[in-house]
């Protein structure tokens, strides 16, 4: 039983990071129906910001987290303005290819600075508590609590504020909303800032939990988070959170109870099965095509 709880805790930690990244995919898709494939690499940039701030400026944890989030959010907004905005009326494939290009640019730019994996110094002293036979580290608690906190704030913003209402309205109908006096460009920038900022936060938390970072770290994690967003129902904010925790749980628990060699095979078969049952994801709703 202790074994099960230990694994559940591991799953929560991994799942909360997946969920944070998945939110970025889903928010951008919800508002622009575009998949921002550079998001995984923005997450990587977040981790590198964390490295720079922690090592060269010797900042402590809270300013590192906030400044990294801010930095990545600004980068996200700039990328949207420079790369995606001119393509807003272009075919969707162009935007996706541009996103892949932006991702490659970020990877290779970081790579050109230094190809070596970097070690993130421990920003917080880690304490491990033992409850029964379950080891709980303070880092694990921090990652889970902070992620959940950020998600709650986001949920509040989306459902309880005017800006959130505008976001939901734009994702509902892009042509009518400007007529109501909503500045679409501002809301799109805000969405990008929040989505990529959360990705940056995930980058910082990830690099605290797994303190060796490299320029390619965002690729696999990015794909997995994208899968989370799809499983939860892409475009749906709560769906992305659920999707993140589901993938985290499936990955950890499959390896826990099956031979770990079959982990990805079993995990992704399960997710495929889920998508066959619910093709639009868990919380996704089929959108009728307007002809």
């Amino acid at each position, binding site marked *: 039983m202790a074994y099960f709880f230990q694994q559940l805790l591991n799953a929560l930690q991994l799942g909360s990071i997946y969920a944070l990244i998945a939110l970025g995919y889903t928010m951008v898709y919800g508002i622009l129906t575009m998949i921002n494939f550079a998001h995984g690499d923005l997450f990587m940039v977040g981790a590198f910001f964390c490295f720079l701030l922690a090592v060269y400026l010797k900042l402590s944890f809270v300013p590192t987290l906030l400044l990294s989030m801010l930095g990545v959010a600004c980068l996200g907004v700039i990328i949207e303005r420079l790369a995606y905005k001119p393509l807003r009326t272009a075919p969707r494939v162009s935007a996706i290819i541009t996103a892949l290009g932006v991702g490659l640019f970020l990877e290779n730019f970081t790579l050109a600075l230094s*190809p070596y994996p970097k070690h993130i110094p421990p920003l917080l002293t880690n304490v491990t508590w033992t409850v029964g036979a379950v080891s709980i580290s303070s880092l694990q608690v921090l990652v889970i609590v902070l992620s959940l906190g950020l998600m709650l704030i986001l949920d509040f913003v989306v459902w309880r504020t005017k800006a959130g209402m505008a976001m939901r309205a734009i994702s509902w109908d892009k042509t009518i909303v400007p007529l109501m006096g909503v500045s679409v460009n501002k809301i799109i920038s805000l969405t990008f800032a929040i989505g990529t900022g959360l990705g940056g936060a995930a980058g910082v938390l990830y690099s605290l939990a*797994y303190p060796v970072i490299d320029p390619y*770290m965002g690729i696999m994690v990015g794909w997995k988070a994208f899968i989370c967003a799809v499983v939860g129902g892409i475009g749906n904010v709560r769906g992305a959170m659920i999707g993140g925790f589901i993938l985290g749980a499936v990955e*950890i628990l499959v390896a826990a109870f099956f031979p770990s060699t079959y982990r990805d095979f079993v995990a992704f078969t399960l997710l495929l099965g889920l998508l066959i049952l619910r093709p639009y994801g868990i919380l996704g709703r089929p959108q009728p095509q307007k002809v």
Partner: protein
Amino acid sequence: MKKTIVGMVLLIVCALFAGGCSKDDASQIKIGLIAELTGDIPAVGASCKNAAEMAVAEVNAAGGIQLGDKKFKIKLIIEDNAGKADQSASAAQKLITQNKVVAIVGPNASRYALPAAEIAESGKVALITPWSTAPKATLDSRTNASKKYVFRACFIDPFQGGVVAKFTLDNLKFRKAAVLYDVASEYNKGIAEIFKTVFEQNGGKIVAFETYTTNDKDFSSQLTKIRQAAPEIIFLPNYYSEVPLQIQQAKRLGIAAPFIGADAWGSEELLKLCGSDCEGYYFSTHYAADAAGEATRKFIADYRSRYSATPDDVAALTYDSFGLLKQALATAGKNDRQAVRDALARIPRYDGVTGTMQFREGSGDPVKSAVILKIRDGKFTWFADAKP
């Protein structure tokens, strides 16, 4: 619009000329180097490139290699495989068909050496991999006989896995071991399986045999499973960039058992990434910089003065690969691919900076000793020798 097109055409023409104009100097021996300069193990590529450049500079400073009645200088052509299997193959292809090299050194990691070795074999160009210890690199994928054109400067994993298993049983006196390895990487998988076989044959017990795939960062599930199995020691035959994460996560989960590793640990980067977490652990490798003989000490001193860093095993093995090649070129007496390959295959014994290598007839694998290093006070220190 017209101007742009004209400009582009001009640019292309210029580029073509620039490419075509690189003149082939007849008094040069061209040797290709494929290294992991970027990707997941860049420290390996950097060491390899440094040692290669140093070896070539030494030869050229002495006027080159005597072939027939003329001295030839060596020209080194370096290709980055970006830590990818497909780019290793295409780099080998490029060196063979485009640069027309006489022989190739590298790649280092087995998962990149394998595809490059296939290309070298079919292109009939000798390839020496300095650091790839997986047996398959020098074996034909269809017939399992030795490849004709592929050689290496290091021992192979059946030997290394045995050394680690016996060291764990006999010197450390541990009987219950767990293994965590990358199932998607040739080297890690091969050595993990050999360790398991030898450990069990000699009376040990493998209580957990867990895997992950390349680029994973979260090992908590597997480590929790290992904790459950209560091993006395954990074998991590993984690359230096992953080992620190595995050890740190294990400690966070409250695993107190010590760890042991193999030659993929042997980069100075491991010490940087690990901090104090790797203190006191052992691993097997190719040579010990602090317990070296006369010739090796000179190599270490030269390398230090050039790059102000201690050469790791990749650097030493790359240097030896060039030593082998130099000897082969001198005996072949001509700048010819087939002659160099034949001369390489006929070297019975070579005294390199990583020790004495003995080649058996028809096989590209040298027989040589291994060393066990201990991480002590943040340094790699010699602990024991293991003879074949």
